[in-house]
């Protein structure tokens, strides 16, 4: 594995493979999948190869170690070399890279298993961890995540108590600027972070998150909670929970979803290994290669949406015919993610295929903004002071009030006019009477 082209020439021994983006200023690599990758592809390949060579030297003891590493890991899980080749091709195309990068992606995956990791759990359900370590038939992405050299991860590490703390602090010091920090879960900031205390010393999650992100090589917020606060931050948010990017001034790569797709995590990490910096991010801090597509635009039920064919009740004919789930509250039109193309559960399915609408779990504040999950968005309540109604109820109430006002005004006008005309005609009558009198005289 990892038998990509070797380029011995033009290799700088002093090149720090974990160099931070600042030092990489002349690295003119356009990663944006929507643009050309670079002006000069050869230059790109050269730089990527140099970086991989350096990292391989650092992470592996010798050539044999390097070549056998992934094989050892995968053979344990019954993944053949062929499966891995297929998977690395898949990841290459998912990352929107040209095929020539396939061997390099494989090498990066190899390196990834030896890169120091810190995995923090904040206020969350550990759903992301569970999703990765408990899969029955893990794909290479999940296997790689299981074998990364985790220096600190509460759910799977052997050390406990003070020992565990020491391990984390040591990694932060020793691998400064190198380790990958993955944070899962929202960070409560209320009471100065006291809503969440972790470990033997009872440090607050806020403090730990700040400390570990300071020295990290790359920071990844995994899952919606770590990215945007998720469920802990849902209204009324008693613990003032926020996403990781709100407590650190370092760049945070958000991999939201509930749980995040392992492919998106591994892909982002592989890209980091390849080029040494974060992939292009969208305005919400999500890697563009994974989150630039709207689910609704890539959904296989979109044809039924356009045809006006909707599931109206669970299990009705439309459901059997896999009609669009818009009326059952699908939030695909409001959600950017790659579930429909990369898929979940060992790349087998995703919500719409399983027959339930998307709940928008990769968007900020989805617990507040995407609810009710099983009703169309038009049925969502607008919450204003004194008002809690759907837009239609509220609008219709105003419309009714306006209609009643208009009717009242019309009646008022009619009555008043009648009275006045009566008055004037009486007046006229008396006037003419007077005139008659005058005439008489």
């Amino acid at each position: 594995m990892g038998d990509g082209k070797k380029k011995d020439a033009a290799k700088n021994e002093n090149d720090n493979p974990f160099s931070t983006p600042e030092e990489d200023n002349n690295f003119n690599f356009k990663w944006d999948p929507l643009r050309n990758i670079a002006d000069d592809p050869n230059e790109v390949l050269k730089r990527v190869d140099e970086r991989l060579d350096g990292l391989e030297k650092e992470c592996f003891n010798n050539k044999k170690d390097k070549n056998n590493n992934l094989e050892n890991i995968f053979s344990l899980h019954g993944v053949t070399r062929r499966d891995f080749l297929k998977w690395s091709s898949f990841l290459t195309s998912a990352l929107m890279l040209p095929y020539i990068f396939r061997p390099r992606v494989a090498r990066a995956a190899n390196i990834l298993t030896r890169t120091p990791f810190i995995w923090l759990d904040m206020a969350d359900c550990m759903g992301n961890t569970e999703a990765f370590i408990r899969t029955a038939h893990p794909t290479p992405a999940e296997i790689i995540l299981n074998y990364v050299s985790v220096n600190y991860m509460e759910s799977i590490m052997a050390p406990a108590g003070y020992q565990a703390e020491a391990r984390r602090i040591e990694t932060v010091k020793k691998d400064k600027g190198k380790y990958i920090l993955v944070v899962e879960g929202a960070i409560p900031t209320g009471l100065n972070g006291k809503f969440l205390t972790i470990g033997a010393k009872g440090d607050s999650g806020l403090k730990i998150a700040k400390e570990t992100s300071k020295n990290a090589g790359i920071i990844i917020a995994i899952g919606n909670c770590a990215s945007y606060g998720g469920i802990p931050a849902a209204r009324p948010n008693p613990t003032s929970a926020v996403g990781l990017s709100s407590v650190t001034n370092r760049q945070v790569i958000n991999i939201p979803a509930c749980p995040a797709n392992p492919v998106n995590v591994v892909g982002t990490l592989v890209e980091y290994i390849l080029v040494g910096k974060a992939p292009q991010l969208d305005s919400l801090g999500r890697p563009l290669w994974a989150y630039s597509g709207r689910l609704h635009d890539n959904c296989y039920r979109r044809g039924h949406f356009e045809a006006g064919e909707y599931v109206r009740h669970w299990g009705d004919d439309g459901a059997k015919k896999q009609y669009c789930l818009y009326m059952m509250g699908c939030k695909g039109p409001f959600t950017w993610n790659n579930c429909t193309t990369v898929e979940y559960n060992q790349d087998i399915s995703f919500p719409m295929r399983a027959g339930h609408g998307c709940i928008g779990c990769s968007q900020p504040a989805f617990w507040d903004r995407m609810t009710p999950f099983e009703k169309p968005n038009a049925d969502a309540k607008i919450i204003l002071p004194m008002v809690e109604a759907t837009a239609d109820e509220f609008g219709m109430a105003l419309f009714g009030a306006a209609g009643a006002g208009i009717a009242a005004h019309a009646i008022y006008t009619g009555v008043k006019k009648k009275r006045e005309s009566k008055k004037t005609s009486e007046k006229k009558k008396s006037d003419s009477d007077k005139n008659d009198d005058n005439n008489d005289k």
Partner: protein
Amino acid sequence: MENKEKKYGDIQLVHRMTVIKRIIHWSFFLAVINNIVTGFYIAYPFLIFGKTPAQSDSISKGIINSGETYQAFIMTWMREFHFIGAVIIDVIFIVWLYLAFFSWKEPLYKSFIPFGDKIAEAGRMVKHYFTLKDKPETTRYQDPLNAIIFTIFHLLILLQMVTGFQMYVASFTGTSAVGGWWPWLMHFTTDWTLVVFGGLTGVTLVHLFTMWLIIIFIVYHIYTEVWRSVMWKEGDILIPFGGYKYIRNKTESE
């Protein structure tokens, strides 16, 4: 004859709407009605086209058979017409904005910006609505109350445009058939709505709710124009058709 003239006062013609303004008025009307109907459908598809084996045609249940999926692109058509209506509204809004400031006949801003006694004049009109007395004198120009309310209506339209474009740009991925500037422009001008209204779902709800305000405006507008025609006998309702109304120097109660 003399008697009649005495009763109704001297009648004078006044030109209120040029041909251009009348065309704008009615295309605006059609486009807004079109967008209300199609918008309702998009928010809440009330018809199912395309029959499944267990469903039979039923207007009351909202099921109309139009054949196979590939024949029934009802949502596509609804969205298409919604977009066409939106384009018409956008163009009209821009023309309105231009005319509001540069119309040689009657720049609206003179009426809606609360200069001098404009607010007081609008207040007098409201008072007249409720007392039926002291009708403000009809002049060659639009009355300030209408000018203010029409301006608010156009601000609602602007809100619909902004929220609508935000929903529209959601399906763009950074570029378009006419180039990257187009989605960029839409993002640049409308992304603030995401922050203010709480994400795309919030923007959608604001779009839906503003529609109700526009419907209320339409009802109010028709009512007041009919009311004026009945009460003032100055032919206000004729303005959008012929462009003219009358000025009478006498009111009925006098």
